[in-house]
């Protein structure tokens, strides 16, 4: 895995379709933004989207209502957060950025997004990579993704399937083929976790590179006090995902729940330094404080022309390699 020293994507090469360097504003990948807007209108969610507040984003849930609320009011921010980690225009998260590019440059990749929600993380970086290819920034090497989207909410999984169907032609134009499956997953249920791990293992047999993305989980794990309960499942997930050419990237908003002293990411880092060290590694095990990279930017709201919102990012890139 890359060291994050030299950037694989120099900020100066980010095209205007994704980043306005003069104003410091992100734009979501145009194709994904169009698909999102179309789906919002098809599902009659425009009004719900307009009621978006400036307080904490909705976390989502397994009902249609809560899923719709999250989709209408937070999906774009989740996409922007992932995009920020990938293209890192301010050079705040070079290690994560390099890890993404190394994983997603080509070949066969097993990509697990857990929890995937409506697919903001996975589609965020796939659509961004595709846009970078379309703009002549990164080469169009054949990239075959087997995507496993693991999510408790069936309505969210259904959104993810729909978005993938609409996004697929654009991805394929840029030599990215995606075979996607969206499966139910409850992080606190051992059997559910076993099913997911089984799928990941089967996928890894055909796909030598593995990327595990955990995104926007702090709301559920930290706010609802689920980390202790989920910890053994997360450990299993990371352990089974570990091996050669395996990487995990954990993305959260930069908020107290995620990055505060008792926040999720520092707790995860303590596990990495401690009981997880045989199969997970950060940039340096001894690093203190935890190597959590922080960034933020404004992004153009895809549903409100000309308006922006702020997105914050906290990200940790982990090598899932077997150690001593």
């Amino acid at each position, binding site marked *: 895995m890359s060291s994050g020293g*030299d950037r*694989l994507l120099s900020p100066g*090469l980010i095209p205007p379709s994704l980043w306005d360097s003069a104003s410091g504003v992100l734009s979501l990948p145009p194709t994904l933004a169009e698909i999102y807007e179309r789906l919002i209108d098809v599902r009659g969610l425009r009004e719900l989207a307009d009621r978006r507040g400036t307080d904490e984003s909705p976390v989502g849930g397994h009902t249609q209502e809560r899923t719709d609320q999250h989709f209408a009011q937070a999906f774009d921010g989740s996409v922007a957060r992932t995009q920020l980690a990938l293209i890192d225009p301010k050079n705040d998260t070079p290690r994560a950025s390099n890890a993404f590019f190394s994983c997603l440059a080509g070949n066969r990749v097993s990509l697990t997004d857990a929890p995937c929600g409506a697919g903001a993380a996975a589609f965020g970086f796939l659509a961004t990579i595709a846009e970078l290819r379309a703009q002549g*920034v*990164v*080469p*169009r090497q*054949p990239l075959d993704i087997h995507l496993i989207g693991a999510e408790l909410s069936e309505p969210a999984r259904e959104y993810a399937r729909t978005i993938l169907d609409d996004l697929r032609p654009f991805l394929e134009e840029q*030599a990215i083929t995606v075979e996607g499956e969206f499966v139910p997953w409850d992080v606190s249920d051992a059997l559910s976790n076993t099913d997911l791990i089984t799928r990941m293992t089967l996928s890894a047999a055909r796909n030598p590179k593995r990327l595990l993305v955990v995104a926007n989980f702090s709301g559920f794990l930290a706010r609802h006090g689920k980390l202790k309960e989920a910890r053994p499942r997360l450990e299993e997930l990371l352990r089974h995902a570990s091996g050669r*050419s395996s990487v995990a990237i954990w993305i959260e908003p930069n908020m107290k729940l995620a990055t505060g002293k008792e926040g999720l990411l520092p707790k995860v880092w303590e596990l990495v330094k401690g009981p997880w060290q045989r199969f997970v590694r950060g940039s340096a095990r001894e690093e203190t404080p935890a190597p959590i990279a922080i960034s933020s930017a404004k992004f153009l709201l895809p549903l409100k022309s000309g308006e922006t919102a702020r997105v914050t990012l906290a990200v940790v890139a982990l090598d899932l390699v077997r150690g001593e």
Partner: protein
Amino acid sequence: MKPSRPGVLAVRAVNQYRRRDVLTYLSLRYYLHNSAARSDTWARQVATDLVQTRTDLPYFRAHHFKEANGGGGIEHRPVFLPGANEALAEAALLDACAENPEAFRAPSCVFSYRLSHGRERAGIFQHYFEGLRERQNAIAEACDAFPDGIVLYTDVKRFYPSIGTELARNAWIKQADLAGLPGGYRDLGEKLIHEHGRAGDPGRNSILTGPMLSHLLGNLVLRELDDVFCEDLPARYFRYVDDIVLVGDAQAVADSLRMVRGRLDDAGFTLHDDDSPKTFRTPASKWVEARNDFRRSRGGYSWMTLVADLKRFLLMYPGKREELQNAFRDEDFRIPVRDYTGAVHEASTAERILDLAKRPWFRRKSQQISVGSILEQARWLREAYRRGFLRLAEGAEDLTGFDRKRRIPRLRFNLGRLIYLGTEDALHNLAPQAERFPELHFHAQIMKAVASGNIDPVLPLGTNAAQGAAQPLKAAGKKVYTKLLDLPEAEEQSLAVFLLNGVPVSRPQVPKHPGSELMQFATTGVDRDLMKSQLPFMREIACLHGLADQPRHPELLDTVFDEDEDLVLDAIEQLQQSVSG
């Protein structure tokens, strides 16, 4: 933002593969058209990782002309061309090897495939001509030391195909461990060797002819023997790829030959027999007449000066490209005039020219270069090479042994340049004279095709010959034709090369279907199906090209990648690459 100047590794890969074959070169150009992929960091981290984690074998099996075997038959050499990503990964891998000369530099008696290092950009390896010239000088010194001695030439049979993957792997691991190569690079080399064995022709399990790594492996597998031969033979030993030269007293040479033959045999290699035409002797006193054969010419103009002035002119005046091209065409010259616009407008080049312009010699030199001065050189050289060829060809058909070995390269030297400089009438008249020499078959067929526009003499030879003809024909703006209806694989590949270059080809009938995927790629561009080709090489190059109604190949071949991209003249280079392995 305009992309910054490419890294050293990208330029090396482009220069090296430009000489090998147009297909990998095109693939690299499409890859490196992307701004982030041009950095050394990308080559070292991404390209190498992609080779390590790939599950397919993206090689294209091309037919290259090897030799005419008398009676009208053609012998091809199968060349396995890597795709762009592997070519770039190779550049990174071999650069890492170059950082460890004690493990990877060949002994001083070996003159071929020396790794580039530092800021050198001419290729992954240093230019072959430097090694040839050094070898010539070294042999001359040995002849001086043994004025009554003999010089013996011999050759290893089928050198690269004889290198099994197990032998290559062992040699690689030994040197990688000696160098302390980081694990990633060590494993990468091992993986590539393993995949050579899988990708090659069935039953062979040897390293591939085509990728640059094979040339390093060729030096590594002979490393121990070279060390012994350099130091311990009674005669002096010189090796260039598979060519071996021994210099010394007759008995010393005989004893050395026996030792070399025996040790090579033990290692799985076979020298040509004593009665083979590839093995011959000449007295040292006679050999020394050839000592200056590789010296640069003095007096008058030279090919080097013409090419250097051409490049300098286009760097300084990229907007005058069309003017120069028209001037060439008006006088029946067919030198390619490439577009340096993209390279020149980059900040580093402009700054450099501004800096150079402060120096009187540069201003003096730049004032001297013009369309007129370049044409004057071309006219002078055209006549010099025509006369040179006629003088050298007279009575040369009956030459044998060392005399013939000296004469043939000089004939090729003149013919290769005449393909770009000679009038159509001159080529038409000289081609039959060239055909009297089997070793000049390659050049003779190209001359016929260039003079007449009928490419049928070239099509059966293979892609290297096709590129040797296509480049000057494109520069001349000439339309060509073929009468062939059926196209076996070599012919079809060759035809595709003409089309890739943008040479308009008239065919007896337009086929309903494009034929092979290569032909489709060359003629109609890329569609979604080609991007999903089951042939990994074609899939990669099609994806890198991207969906388009029209292929972009001719315009890409017209532009340079970087100001340090060499002007490669294929009718000269392609056969040299074949001869050098």
